[in-house]
């Protein structure tokens, strides 16, 4: 009898253990990003959809203030768990993290529908370090012109359909700006032909977008970043002349939001900045009044792009789930189209833009994207940004000539480590 009871107890015990083992273990995915990212993008909806396919997952959202590399670097270097996915400003920061071997690569999951050839090259290159993809692009943009069709129509710069005829050369563009600029009786500009984003955050992209468009490459004959070609001189001369003659606003020297504010308030007819602003400005002036116009020759030669990046640190507790969430939801078509429709931002996959080419804005962006490049990763990227910004801003304040500006950049950057 006693033996019978013992056997029954043993069987019940074994059954209990196996049920516990078989029970689905709850897993947490922690996502960290600056607070504005959560307000802007439907991360919670993405989480709900992910949970339908992965019911064992719960999400924790960690909203950060201003992300800086140093605190994250310190935490991850000490194997501290901060999050499974970090959404960080630029891939150049991924370079810093990966210099200390702190990131997980995505090579094992970029297959099938997520294979590398399915992504927009410029954006994926930006996230590739030493041949491996260490971040997934998000919030991606290209540098281009955003223009007011109504002002261009008044100035006689549109075709029979009311679309702006893209300027073919910088000389053409200069003449466009003269026609688009309005001055009062005293000669003071009341509407600028153009506002260009020359702020510290944008300068390097603005400069190289012009170089890429004019030359088809951002490198010179010696395979160094171009600060010496005749096209570089032509670009800077065009900018300085435009400022001197009151055709181009310098609002961005102080405020990186200056150009979009100028467009929203009707103070500028054209803006040289990232394409995404077309949506933001459209909510104020009306989307039908805006057009994406390629920088002269950008349709042939492309432009420069940049993006934010989704990274998974080595300290992540659920690496596989994190990768799955990044690809299945944060790169889902619905998520991409939400970003495009509401904020003008792109994700990294070709099909997401190609499916929207029936809309003129995305048709033009898609055409420019084919030849678009990203900036190379450089150890002294931050120093180069400051040097280029300082020298070109000094030129725009009419303190030095374009020749002196390029010479100054070459001289000051000669000791920098500009290779990855």
């Amino acid at each position: 009898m006693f033996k019978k009871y013992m056997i029954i107890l043993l069987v019940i015990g074994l059954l209990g253990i196996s049920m516990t083992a078989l029970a689905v273990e709850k897993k947490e995915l922690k996502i960290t990003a600056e607070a504005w990212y959560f307000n802007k993008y439907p991360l919670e909806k993405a989480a709900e959809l992910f949970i339908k396919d992965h019911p064992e997952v719960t999400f924790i959202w960690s909203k950060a203030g201003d992300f800086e590399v140093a605190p994250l670097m310190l935490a991850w270097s000490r194997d501290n768990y901060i999050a499974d996915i970090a959404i960080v400003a630029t891939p150049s920061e991924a370079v810093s993290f990966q210099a200390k071997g702190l990131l997980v690569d995505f090579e094992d999951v970029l297959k099938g529908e997520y294979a590398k050839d399915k992504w927009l090259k410029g954006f994926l290159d930006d996230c590739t370090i030493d041949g491996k993809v260490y971040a997934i692009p998000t919030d991606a943009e290209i540098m281009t012109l955003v223009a007011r069709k109504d002002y261009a129509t008044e100035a006689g710069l549109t075709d029979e359909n009311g679309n702006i005829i893209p300027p073919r050369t910088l000389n053409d563009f200069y003449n466009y700006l003269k026609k688009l600029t309005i001055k009062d009786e005293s000669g003071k500009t009341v509407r600028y032909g153009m506002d260009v984003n020359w702020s510290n955050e944008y300068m390097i992209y603005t400069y190289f977008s012009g170089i890429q468009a004019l030359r088809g490459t951002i490198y010179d004959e010696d395979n160094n970043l171009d600060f010496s070609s005749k096209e570089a001189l032509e670009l800077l001369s065009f900018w300085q002349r435009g400022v001197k003659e009151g055709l181009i606003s310098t609002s961005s020297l102080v405020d990186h939001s200056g150009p979009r504010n100028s467009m929203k308030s009707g103070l500028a007819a054209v803006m040289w900045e990232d394409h995404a602003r077309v949506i933001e400005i459209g909510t104020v002036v009306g989307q039908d009044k805006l057009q994406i116009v390629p920088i002269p020759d950008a349709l042939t030669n492309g432009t420069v792009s940049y993006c934010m990046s989704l990274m998974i640190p080595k300290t992540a507790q659920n690496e596989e789930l994190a990768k799955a969430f990044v690809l299945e939801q944060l790169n889902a078509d619905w998520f991409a189209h939400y970003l495009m429709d509401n904020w003008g931002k792109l994700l990294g996959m070709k099909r997401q833009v190609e499916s929207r080419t029936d809309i003129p804005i995305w048709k033009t962006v898609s055409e420019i994207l084919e030849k678009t490049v990203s900036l190379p990763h450089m150890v002294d990227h931050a120093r180069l940004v400051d040097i280029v910004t300082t020298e070109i801003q000094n030129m725009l304040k009419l303190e030095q000539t374009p020749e002196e500006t390029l010479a100054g950049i070459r001289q000051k950057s000669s000791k920098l480590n500009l290779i990855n």
Partner: protein
Amino acid sequence: MSKKISTLTSWLFITPSLLIIGTFLLYPLVSSIYLSFTNYNFVYSNKPEFTGFENFKNLFSDSYFIIALRNTFYYTLVFFPLIILFSFLLALLLNSKTKGTGFFQSTILLPIVVPLSLAGVMFTWILAKDFGILNYLLDNILKLPQLTHFWLAEKETALNSLVAVGLWKYVGFCVILFLSGLKSIPGDIYESAKVDGANPLQRLIYITIPNLRSSFLLVAIWSIIQAIKVYDQVVVMTKGGPGDSTLVLYLYAWKNAFVYFDMGYAQTIALFIGALAFIISVIFNLVLKPERK
């Protein structure tokens, strides 16, 4: 025995403070002095590499450091006399027994409680070229369009605009220092002087100013140090631009540390700033030290 206990008790009481000072003051100070003699990139170096005085030699061949030094000196040379002048004059006015001084006192002291970063955002909008209140007042109300400027983007006005913001923020604090000095001057000295026929200007020159020597010393040293370490309004309003017009020492040190990750060189600049502030304080202390009575 009781003396030993008393000594031990004293040590027990000051030990927590010593620990805090040691941890949060001495250790970082010694550490930063050590780092200034090394080449250490936070991202790309595994550990600091001792380089002797290399960083200090590089300081004076670094064109951006020279520009930052020049801009900081300019800021100090403009800020220092103006804050002493304005705060002294305001303190004299507020010290009078005129009706309404209470209200004006509160108004002048209000900027002290406003964070400088917030004030910087506010002044960025006030000084904006196309949307700013200042240009609107000059152009449309006072009909002086020739005086309108792109205040934060023009070389001649950018740094001066930052000085103006600093004055707005700190004049109230200096007024308090002068007011407390003024209120400590015995009234009977003024009565005697009046009886002797001294006019208001003579009373100011021969009684008020000499008796405010300590206040002048305090305001002078404090304002010089504030000027040398100017940072908040620069970061918020101009970020050192346009170009390098408003690049100052503190901002340059911060950039080297947290943007370029060159910790060794950043510490060198920080040490330079500290040494500069210390030397100037010592000089002022020697020159303006109140005489012992």
